[in-house]
């Protein structure tokens, strides 16, 4: 045929208000996944200060923990990790063929539970830095 028009992928994200639960779950799981793998590399790098001796390790970690911004980032990390775990469990059930009829409700449940756990943990996470 002569030419056809390829609308590209850009049109997709303009429609975000129309996304379904399953699509949000996929997007969030991917996003949190990237954050976590990025964090893994960073975390091991920080922990590698152990190889430079106890004092370097201790002072690095405690120095980081003293910064309020780091505490907030840790709360964010908690949110990301908890969502990835809860939605991951949902996906494991889907893979086993269990509960597919309520897959959208289980996504909303993961979101709610993530929120609840994060809010409940804020005091512990911020303790000593505020």
């Amino acid at each position, binding site marked *: 045929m002569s030419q056809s028009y390829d609308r590209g992928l850009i049109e997709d994200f303009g429609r975000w208000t129309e996304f379904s639960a399953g699509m949000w779950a996929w997007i969030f799981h*991917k996003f949190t*996944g*990237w954050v*976590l*793998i990025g964090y*893994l*590399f960073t975390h*091991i790098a920080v*922990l*590698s200060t*152990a*190889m430079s001796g*106890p*004092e370097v*390790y*201790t002072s690095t*970690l*405690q120095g980081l*923990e*003293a910064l309020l911004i780091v505490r907030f980032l*840790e709360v964010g990390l*908690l949110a990301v*990790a908890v969502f990835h*775990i809860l939605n*991951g*469990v949902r*996906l*494991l059930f889907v*893979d086993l063929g269990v509960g597919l009829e309520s897959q959208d409700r289980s996504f909303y449940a993961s979101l709610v539970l993530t929120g609840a756990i994060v809010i409940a*943990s804020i005091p*512990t*996470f911020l*303790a*000593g*830095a505020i």
Partner: protein
Amino acid sequence: MAERYSSFEPKGTRWLLQRLTAAFLVVVLAFHFMTLHFVNHAADVTFAGTQMRMQQPGYFVTMVAFGLTATFHGVNGVYNALVNQGIEGTGKTAVKWVLIVAALLLGVQIIRVATVMAGVSIA
């Protein structure tokens, strides 16, 4: 059209491993968070405290397994996300090898750091 056989993709092994490692990580990551934020506080971490935990053989083994499993799960996840997005050809091969190398380096570093944390000095 369906691809012909690729010897590197043995029939969904990575898919299965991603699920198996996921099940393991759900438990261990939750445990890790509990240990380092609730039982002990991250702000109170010292080398001595770390060493005390890492010198317990069960804890040490769990942490190393945790690190290596997470490395596989994460790097495999990244690879799959990119394949879903449509990388192919030389780009795909390049990315695959970069990821494999990165994963190996990370794995090795995890073992080294864990060993040092347990009080065994590596020159």
